[in-house]
């Protein structure tokens, strides 16, 4: 059974410096770097962070196959975003930077300007540098440790435990779903596209109803098991998977803190605005 079930998050315990960091560290670094990139519109700063995040991606030995699907989605998103931004506001760059250097007239009074190109490239690079950071965080953090770090930054432990519990039982429910679906298909249920839309909806219910009933049994059992071992009796709880902060964690937090401060400083002292303006 387990061979086909697979793991939901392809979190793999590989031994790299990134995996060894505590979940809390990774969450803090992720937030620092994300804020840095989100705040700044300086393409130079963003490029630095982007190179940094690709280096980290490399260090954490994440395989392309693990993130392939996500990369495709992100690429589609960035491309759509780029096209739409241009169609809805082709002069936005001009507005921001206050100059207008036309590269090429397009149609009507719409033109491609250097300002617009810089603005849009900057914006897309922002996404391109933040998303690898998110992937690193998700793929190198044990889901329970993720829950424990959520609770350490102030999320109530019942809510963060729910995250871990969902990850624990998701594969079981997937397996139930597959078993039920196969058994119903044997009785003649047609799930293919040949069936009419209304029928397909009705047919989906044939799987969902048994799935709900078998999941309800499961939930009663889990909640009894948790009660019997004292879940939620105290205001706080400790975590088996929590990792202690060590030198590497402090270094990582300080490093990402410095990057954050540097970004802000560049904006305040050098650019005197969130935007880097090479046109004046």
């Amino acid at each position, binding site marked *: 059974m387990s*061979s086909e079930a697979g793991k939901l998050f392809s979190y793999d315990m590989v031994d790299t410096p990134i995996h060894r960091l505590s979940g809390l560290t990774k969450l803090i670094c992720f937030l620092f770097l994300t804020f840095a990139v989100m705040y700044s519109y300086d393409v130079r700063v963003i490029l630095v962070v982007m190179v940094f995040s690709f280096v980290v991606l490399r260090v954490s030995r994440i395989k392309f196959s693990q993130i392939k699907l996500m990369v495709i989605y992100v690429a589609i998103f960035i491309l759509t975003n780029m096209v739409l931004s241009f169609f809805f506001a082709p002069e936005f760059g001009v507005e921001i930077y206050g100059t207008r250097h036309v590269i090429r007239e397009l149609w009507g009074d719409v033109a491609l300007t250097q300002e617009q190109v810089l603005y849009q490239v900057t914006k897309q690079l922002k996404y391109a540098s933040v998303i690898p950071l998110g992937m690193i965080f998700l793929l190198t953090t044990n889901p329970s440790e993720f829950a424990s770090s959520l609770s350490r930054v102030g999320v109530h432990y019942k809510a963060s435990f729910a995250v871990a519990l969902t990850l624990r039982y998701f594969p079981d429910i997937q397996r139930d779903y597959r078993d039920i679906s196969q058994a119903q298909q044997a009785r003649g249920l047609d799930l293919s596209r040949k069936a009419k839309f209304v029928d397909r909806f009705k047919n989906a219910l044939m799987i969902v109803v048994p799935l709900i009933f078998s999941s309800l049994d499961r939930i009663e059992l889990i909640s009894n098991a948790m009660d*019997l071992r004292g879940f939620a009796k105290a205001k706080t709880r400790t975590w088996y998977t929590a990792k202690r902060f060590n030198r590497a964690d402090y270094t990582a937090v300080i490093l990402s803190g410095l990057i954050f401060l540097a970004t802000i400083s560049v904006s305040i002292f050098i650019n005197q605005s969130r935007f880097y303006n090479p046109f004046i």
Partner: protein
Amino acid sequence: MDMENQPVIEFKNFTFQYFSQAEPTLYDINLSINEGEKILVVGPSGSGKSTLGHCINGLIPFAYKGEISGCLTINGVDTRDKSIFDLSKIVGTVLQDADGQFVGLTAGEDIAFALENDNVPYDAMHQRVRRVAEMVGMETLLDSSPFELSGGQKQRTSLAGVLVDDVDILLFDEPLANLDPATGKTAIEIIDDIQQRSGKTIFIIEHRLEDVLHRYVDRIIVLREGRIIADKDAHSLVSSEILKDTGIREPLYVTALKYAGVNVSEEIKPGYIATLELNETRNAVVDWHRSIKKDWRENTNPTILEMEDITFSYDGSRTVLQDINIKIQEGEMLSLVGKNGAGKSTLSKLLCGFEKENTGVIRYRDADIADLTIKERAEIIGVVLQNPNQMISKPMIYDEVALGLRFRNISEEEIRPRVEKVLKICGLSPFIKWPISALSYGQKKRVTIASILVLNPKILILDEPTAGQDFRHYTDIMEFLVEINKLGVTVILITHDMHLMLEYTPRAIVLSNGYIVADTKASIVLTDADVISSANLKETSLYHLAQMAGIANGTQFVQAFIDYERRLKKR
């Protein structure tokens, strides 16, 4: 009894009624249990034995509400004056579903769960988890996820998860229900060893009497219809009529002794096979064995289903099935056995067309069925899942059974007689207009079988049809399947249940790591040491009895027992 020691658990005139029920589930229970005792509670389904367990661990009255009269004290304090959390520090509960109660993402995390909730600091927690894991032999598997652990390992994890709290009382609610025979045997040994070492009070709720009596227990409490009807030691209980009257299966060797005309009394210490003293009754057993005529009827019907050189792999690298060659004769009833992960479910998925074999041919009456769709195959081969809740999707019995026919666009005029006929076969005619929610588990199981039978399959595959059922329900379901089988339906049972193999299926196919390691008589499968270990079975106690009686060929003795029973039941 030592008067200075007050009982750890004491029920006094205790009656409990769930708010949702019209009648009390437990009546006037008086029971006291002393520190360090090992108690087994047996009783058929619905006798109130799980409810008794819930009262001790605090699920009653804290999670399940109801009315209590009389009182229950644990360590001298009324449970109503404690909270479920207080009780969890005294009573550790291991539930029957080792997978469902596994709340952690790894074994270590699951063991630590109670400590986490107690705010135990990191270092102390890791130390205690490690120490307890060593007690149950899980120390090398602390980082494994539940998907990588076997049923037995998950149960050990659960046990460690309550031992970690250093509780005084260990409560096991049907610990054997989801385990194969070999793992169940080990579980009983682990429970016993822990009690020997720690002196904890042990409370086991289980209806599989013989399996628990693999090791010594102090007292056996028998519950029936919410009342305690016996509180005895094993020898006295086994030699009484109580087991027969309450519908609890007596140990198999005791049945054999009775067939042989031996007077099973306390003097021969029949409670455990290890203590049994045959002495002069040995001759009776030998004589009985000699008197039984062989009754092996070869099934000479044409082959209905054939698998030839089947191999299969889910991912292209790890083969799940290899060199599978099986011929099944029409009208057979046979068992497919093997450890979890041996390939049994995969084999049935190939037959139903849910998965496609990589090489080889599956033939139905000599015709290759490779081109048949899932829907078309279902009219030849029907499959019934273990959990009826996974199959039932309609609120009314009639609609549920009619579903497969409606999917095939058969007219309502034709559907009605077919549904009525199949409900009659399944003994469900009186319920034709009932909602499914009003049925018991066993009746639901029948509904799911009816909903498959209505398609007229020639072959029926059932996955663990009797799992978790008490002796009466087990017998009901199996006798029902015998009836179906007599109507000409070939029945394949995927099972761990050794009684089922012994009593109902003359032939057993054993899978191990994707290979067929045996395809032979059930009596051979249950007595061949190699096959037993490859399929996680255990030797039947009949084999030990044969040895004790000095019968050289144990397999023959087991076969003789099967033949004798078959003649007795006129099958």
